[in-house]
């Protein structure tokens, strides 16, 4: 894991929050995974929006 600060993102469609520090272990995404490093075929677990359409907004840095 690199040493830069992790960020928190929120899906603008459904409000789902992705916290880089926590990752999504149940979805195969390890804690500390940066948004940029999430696979392109990943979809929001709550609303199904694909990463390409995800339009995450930065909640906190």
């Amino acid at each position, binding site marked *: 894991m690199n040493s830069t600060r992790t960020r928190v993102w929120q899906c*603008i*469609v459904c*409000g789902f929050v992705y916290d880089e520090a926590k990752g999504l*272990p*149940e979805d195969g995404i390890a804690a500390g995974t940066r948004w940029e490093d999430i696979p392109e075929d990943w979809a929001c677990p*709550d609303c*199904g929006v694909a990463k390409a*359409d995800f*339009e995450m907004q930065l909640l906190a840095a």
Partner: protein
Amino acid sequence: MNPILIVGTGLAGYTLAREFRKLDKATPLALLTRDSGGFYSKPMLSTAIAQGKEAMALVTQSAEQMGAQLGATVRTGVEVASIETAARVVRLSGGESIAYSKLVLAPGADPIRIPLGGDAAGEVLSVNDVDDYARFRAAIRGRKRVAVIGAGLIGCEFANDLAAGGFEVDLIDLAPGPLGRLAPPEAGDFVRGGLAAIGVRFHFGSAPKSVDRDRNAVVLSLADGTRVPTDVVLSAVGLRPRTSLAQAAGLAVNRGIVVDRFLQTSAPDVFALGDAAEVDGLVLPYVMPIMQAARALAKTIAGEPTAVSYPAMPVVVKTPAAPLVVSPIPRGEGRWTCTTSPDGIRAECFDAESRLVGFALAGAAVAEKQALAKLVPGWLAAESPAA
């Protein structure tokens, strides 16, 4: 060429437009809305108060920005008065006519209101869009207490959000506990416990009868004689698909606007999706079915007829005081079996053939959502798109 015309700019209308533009950048596209047409996250309406968000902060893009981004005309503040499917024309309330090549109805749903007596019944609010949210925010500003009628999904989310935002919350329902139509009683009890721990008071098993003014506050009276003093009353007892326009146009209407798996209504080149649509018998006012329907319909109107399939789509109940995920049983019934442990509940629902058809996970067990969802058969199974 006449435009593809979409009536409604909620999540359904805008998502369809976005998906369509991925496939077709040239065909004229127009969207009509009676409100201001801003894009916002509807699920966030019931989680925004604790975050102190004003309505304007929820609107991430204006109608103008959406129009530019989608290469579409977005007309705001217009009401569709009638549809003439034979002439392929929509008439606005001002008298103007708009011809279409294909028409998509995405008008959404109206909050159901139970009849209430009393001299303050007219002040009861519902929140089903961002303008409603703005009115509700204004009503609770400087107030301390909110009574929420309806302990279903939306009522529980608002109760959690308001309590977390510092309000005294009373939650009222005729049913014996929360979430009775969605989840087994054990899951309802779990949510009840979580909400009680953040101060929510419950009044179950008695119907609300009237709301009366009492100096600068109100009193909500229940059928059993209970009097609930409060400042603002929020009604969250469910949604009714907006079908009147479709019905007046002669389209088949049941609970919602009746469409097949191609999202096609009973009239040629007229489609429907979202909270107003009844897709192969299912009315599902949740985000994920809308996304599925929008993707399929975008292909169909771009020239590649595509039937929508629904996988099992678990619903996240946004009650942080008692995290809950439910994969509802969209058709028929089942038997629930529950395992309760100190940190949560794992409930599974089986049909008569002992197949897993739904589940509810509460507390730490919510982490099993993805794994369990894969085991539940799809609600509209994928099949070859032979019409």
